[in-house]
C-alpha cells in the first residue's frame, strides 16, 4: 500500500463510524476509565475526514509526504486509536490494552508509542500551535502536505488556541484545516453555561479564518462541508469547519449528558444498553471477545513498533 485515502462510500463511512463508536465504548469499558463522550460526538465527521481526505500510508506512518492528522483534545484518545487501527496502522485487537500499564495506547496519545500519532496530546490548547508549526514547516520544505487538526469546543477557552488562530491567519497558512467538535459540552456542563464561546463563527472570522459550519452527524452534510473546506485551502487563509454535534451521539440513553465526557460505561449493563442502541446484537462479553486474543494483537503491535516481544503476564 502507498500513501492515499481509503475512499469509502457514504454507506461505508456510516458503517465505519458505527464500528468506531463501538470501538470507543468497548475500549473505555475494558479500561474502566477514559473518555467516551467526545469520541462519540466526533466519530462521524472524523471518520469521514480521516478515511476520505487525510493522505497517509498505514504501513509507513512517517511517510514524508503524508498529511498530518492531529487530535488536539487528546482525551479523545479512544477515538484516535479506533481510527488508526481501522485505517490499518495496527490490529483492532490491541485496542483492548487501552490505558493498561505498559500499553502503547496510553490514556492520552503518545507519539512515541502509537503508529500514526503525530503529536502527544492531553493538555488542551497545544494542538493548534504545533499544527501551525508543522504547516509552516511544510511550506518551508516546499511540501504540499496538509495539516488537519481536531479541537474541542471547551478547548477553545484556552488562550493558547487564540494565539495560534491569530498566527495562522497572520502567516496566511492555508495548508491547515481545523475541525471543531462543537458539542456544547465540557466537564462541568454545557459549554455555553460553563464559559460561553459563542459566536464561534464570528470569532474565527474576526481572527481572519474562512469558516464553514454545519451538522457533524449527517454524513452527506459532513462530506459536503469537508469538500468545500478543502477546496478553500490554498487560498491564503486558514480554514475551519465547526461541526455541531451531540455528546455520546449514537447511544440515545446517554446523549448530551456531560457526565459521559470522562466516564466509561464500565458497568456491563450500561455497555449492553449502548451496544443495543448502536444496533449490535451482542453482550458486552461477546463484544470484547470479538476483538480476539489480546496477546496475539500485542505481539503484532510490538513487531510494528520494533519493540521486544511482550511478556505475557497473568493479569490480562
Amino acid at each position, binding site marked *: 500500500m502507498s500513501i492515499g485515502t481509503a475512499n469509502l462510500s457514504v454507506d461505508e463511512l456510516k458503517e465505519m463510524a458505527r464500528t468506531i463508536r463501538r470501538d470507543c465504548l468497548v475500549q473505555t469499558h475494558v*479500561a474502566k476509565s477514559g473518555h467516551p463522550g467526545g469520541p462519540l460526538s466526533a466519530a462521524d465527521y472524523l471518520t469521514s475526514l480521516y478515511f476520505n481526505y487525510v493522505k497517509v500510508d498505514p504501513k509507513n506512518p512517517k511517510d514524508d509526504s503524508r498529511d498530518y492528522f492531529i487530535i488536539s483534545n487528546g482525551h479523545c484518545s479512544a477515538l484516535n486509536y479506533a481510527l488508526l487501527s481501522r485505517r490499518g496502522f495496527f490490529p483492532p485487537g490491541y485496542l483492548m490494552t487501552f490505558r493498561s500499564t505498559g500499553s502503547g495506547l496510553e490514556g492520552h496519545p503518545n507519539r512515541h508509542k502509537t503508529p500514526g500519532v503525530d503529536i502527544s496530546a492531553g493538555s488542551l490548547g497545544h494542538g493548534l500551535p504545533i499544527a501551525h508549526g508543522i504547516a509552516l514547516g511544510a511550506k518551508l520544505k516546499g511540501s504540499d502536505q496538509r495539516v488537519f487538526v481536531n479541537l474541542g469546543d471547551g478547548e477553545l477557552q484556552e488562550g493558547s488556541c487564540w494565539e495560534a488562530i491569530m498566527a495562522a491567519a497572520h502567516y496566511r497558512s492555508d495548508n491547515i484545516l481545523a475541525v471543531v467538535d462543537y458539542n456544547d459540552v465540557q*466537564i462541568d456542563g454545557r459549554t455555553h453555561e460553563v*464559559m460561553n464561546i459563542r459566536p464561534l463563527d464570528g470569532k474565527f472570522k474576526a481572527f481572519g479564518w474562512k469558516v464553514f459550519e454545519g451538522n457533524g452527524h449527517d454524513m452527506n452534510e459532513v462530506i459536503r462541508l469537508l469538500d468545500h473546506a478543502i477546496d478553500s485551502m490554498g487560498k491564503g487563509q486558514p480554514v475551519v469547519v465547526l461541526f455541531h454535534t451531540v455528546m455520546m451521539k449514537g447511544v440515545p440513553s446517554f446523549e448530551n449528558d456531560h457526565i459521559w465526557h470522562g466516564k466509561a460505561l464500565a458497568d456491563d449493563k450500561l455497555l449492553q444498553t449502548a451496544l443495543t442502541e448502536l444496533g449490535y446484537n451482542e453482550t458486552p462479553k461477546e463484544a470484547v471477545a470479538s476483538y480476539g486474543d489480546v496477546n496475539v494483537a500485542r505481539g503484532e503491535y510490538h513487531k510494528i513498533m520494533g519493540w521486544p516481544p511482550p511478556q505475557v503476564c497473568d493479569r490480562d
Partner: protein
Amino acid sequence: MVKTGKDRWTYELTRKAYGETLVELGHENPRIVVLDADLAESTLTKFFRDEFPDRFFEIGIAEQDMVGTAAGLALQGFIPFLSSYAIFITGRAWDQCRQDVDYMKTNVKLSAAHGGISVGKDGPTHQSMEDLACMSACTNMKVLVPADYHETIKAVRWSAEYEGPVYFRLGREKVPMVTEEPSPFEMGKGFVHVDGTDGTIIACGLMLSQAIEAREILEEEDGIKPRVVNMPFLKPIDEEMIIKCAKENGPIVTAEEHQVYGGFGSIIARVVVENHPVPMRIVGIPNMYLGSGDPFDLLAIAGLTGRHIANKMKEVL
C-alpha cells in the same frame, strides 16, 4: 510478615477532604470564594459550587485567567481557593502564580489536584512530577503536600487562616489514612510519626504510608528502627527537625512522589549539607516519564514503595 501493599490501609480521597472542608469554611467565613477551570466535578469544588453558587467562579478551561482572576478577588479582600490539576496550575499558569500571587503577595490558595504519578491511567500529560520544584522556587509561596484525608482538612483550614500565597498538592486516588484527626499540624513543621534510633526517613504526601511500611520491613528483617518523620511542608522547610534528625540518627532517606530534581529531597539535602552533612538517599521519580497505567503499578515501577525505601536505608546505614 510486614503487611505491605494495597490491603494494609484504609483509603480515602484527599480531594474529598478538600471539597468538604471548603463547604464548612464557606459557612464560617463569607470571604471564602472558590474558582475552578472546568474541573469542579473532579477537584470536588462542586460541593462548594452547589452550596454557594454566588461565591463560586467557573472560569472554563483557562488556567491563566483563573489565577489572575483569583488575584483580583484577593485584592478585593476575598480569600480565593482555586483548583485545577497540579500540572495545569503549574504548567499553564506559572507566570500568573509567580507574578500575580507570589510577587504580589495576594492571599490566593492554589489547590493542586491530581499531583504525582498516582494519577495513573491518564498518563504523563496529566501526571505532575515537577510542580513542587516549580512552586518551591517561588519566593513567598508556602508549599505543602498533606499526607492524607485528615491532614488535608488541616492544610485547607490552615490555608484559609494564613494570610498569603499557598500551594498545596492533593492526589487523584484514595490514599492510605495514616494520620489521625488529632495528629499535630503546624506551618513549617515536621512531626515524628514513629520514633526510632537508626537513621531517619522523612516523607511527605502518600509516601508517608510507604515510609511507615519501610520502617516495619527494616525492623522485621534487620532489627533496624529508623525514625519516621512526616514533613508536609516543603516551604518553609523544618530545618530544625532535619538538623536534629541528622545529629541524633545520622543517615536520612527522603521519600516523595516527585521528580528528584528540585523536589522535597533536594530541599532537605541542601539543609543537610549546609548544617550537618550525613549520608542521604533521595527516593523520588528517577527522572523518567512513567506512561499510563494502574497507579500502584506506576508507583512500583518508579520505586516509590516501602520496600524500595527500606533498601535505600540499608544502603546508607
